[in-house]
């Protein structure tokens, strides 16, 4: 089956802006001409608890709207990482927030200090999700920075636009310090992969 389906999951705690990050990513992907499908699941509480959002992008119309096998997983804390790591592709990429994640379940992972960057460099911890989104955008290589910036600008109130665009760029810059090609090719061994 010719299928360019690319699947991203965003995990964190309620109130961390996980769903907003996914919505912005989906919007940016539409600017890039993709079909998108964005879903989320959450408990009844407005704040706290675990929160999960997913985005599927594809050149063709999307049938199943949820993640089948993740190409990319952004985990903003350890609880979300542990809870939502299932369905990870052998050659997927895990991006996690160094501030709240200590143990990694895969070696195809990057740990970047999103919350620290938001807090210390930008002075607003609340934009950690957008910092992470900048890194996701850069590492997945599916949407351009201008598309992400346009999407962020469309989704946040005018007076926070500058801060959020700055956050996006800070995240992308952090992502530039790592190299996807240096990761192990797949978390499944070569022998296994050949079977």
């Amino acid at each position, binding site marked *: 089956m010719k299928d360019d389906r690319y699947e991203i999951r965003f995990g964190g705690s309620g109130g961390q802006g996980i769903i907003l990050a996914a919505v912005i990513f989906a919007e940016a992907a539409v600017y890039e001409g993709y079909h998108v499908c964005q879903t989320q699941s959450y408990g009844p509480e407005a704040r706290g608890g675990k929160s999960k959002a997913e985005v599927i992008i594809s050149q063709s*119309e999307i049938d199943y*709207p949820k993640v*089948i096998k993740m190409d990319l997983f952004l985990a903003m804390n350890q609880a979300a990482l542990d809870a939502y790591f299932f369905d990870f592709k052998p050659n997927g990429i895990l991006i996690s927030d160094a501030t709240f994640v200590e143990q990694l379940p895969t070696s195809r992972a990057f740990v970047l200090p999103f919350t620290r960057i938001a807090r210390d460099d930008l002075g607003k911890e609340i934009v950690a999700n957008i910092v992470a989104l900048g890194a996701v955008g850069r590492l997945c290589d599916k949407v351009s920075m201008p598309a992400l910036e346009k999407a962020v600008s469309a989704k946040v109130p005018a007076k926070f636009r500058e801060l959020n665009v700055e956050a996006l760029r800070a995240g992308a810059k952090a992502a530039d310090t790592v190299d996807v090609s240096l990761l192990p090719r797949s978390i499944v061994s070569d022998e296994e992969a050949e079977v």
Partner: protein
Amino acid sequence: MSGGYEGKENVVNIEQSENRLVLQGNEAIVEGALASGCRFFAGYPITPASEIAELMSFKLPAVGGSFIQMEDEIASMGAIIGASLAGVKSLTATSGPGFSLMQENLGFACVAEVPCVVVNVMRGGPSTGLPTSPSQGDVMQARWGTHGDHPIIVLAVSSVRDCFEITVHAFNLSEKYRVPVILLSDEVVAHTREDIILPELKNLEVVERIRPSVPPEWYIPYEDNSRGVPAMADIGSGYRHHVTGLIHDAKGFPTQRSDEIDAFTRRQFRKITNGFCEIQMTKSLMMDDAEIAVIAYGAVSRSALRAIRIARERGVKAGLLQLITLFPFPKKAVDPVLRQCRAVLVPEMNMGQIIREVKRVNLSSKVVKYSRVDGQFITPDEIFEQLLAMYM
């Protein structure tokens, strides 16, 4: 393809258009309703349908319409019937518990033949159930929930684009046949955001109820005609008449005469039967050479589509019949699938509701049930496994 629904095969050219938006299913229902000319909404907050009320409260006043949050769903249903009687296309939206409350006045809309659209975003039940989980448990309630013998139209949506297009169909059918139309969505479709290009209004077919062409003194509010759908006068337009929940004669007055009661009941069914060809909408995919098939509706049909694509990759000749219209049950589309295929799978997020209708079409066919009732969405893999077992 059968019925009036122009479904398209999967790959389309992605257009870069100013109208290309990312909308949630619930938001697309609002856009569909407004595009259909809906100018009245009454509702009561409930998960997972509340976004429809919220967006309506914001958008309706800007187009000269009215929004009101009522004290409960009984009142919401009463208010939309009132507004529709006054000539304004009306919508309400709810989920299971609220849908149960609406059944009373839904019956009034049936008996008085008042066009209106009721969205039920299905969640797990019974009772308070699972407010944030998807389900398809209300299918038979949509058909039979209000008491008494009555026909009704029930449509199911599977995507954001459906939410727009099928909402327009819902209003059109409701206006054309003077029946309430139930639009079944579910938590998955309601909260999924997808890209959608909204058609320009001028390209959209919007149907209006037929109003009387005779002068008021000649008007007979429930007079039969070839279509079985009487002309409908707006309250306050000079055509003073009586509207009642009692079984009534052609003038709209309560009757106990058996000949009038019989004529009334039979006309209700006849008007829908007359429209079967256009009302019964389905979409078939990869059915041409299919040896086994999935019959699905709502969000599950998307898992099913994925599953038959996986199946085809593995050489399994599987096809999909997606039901847009659940009631009146699209027998004409289901029958050939049952004849063509050696087995048919009906996956549902309930213990088996629409499967009963499928089986009734042809009792000698092999119809396999697949139920998921744990508050989770059925995945493509689950359906594929079933298909594989059926194919062997």
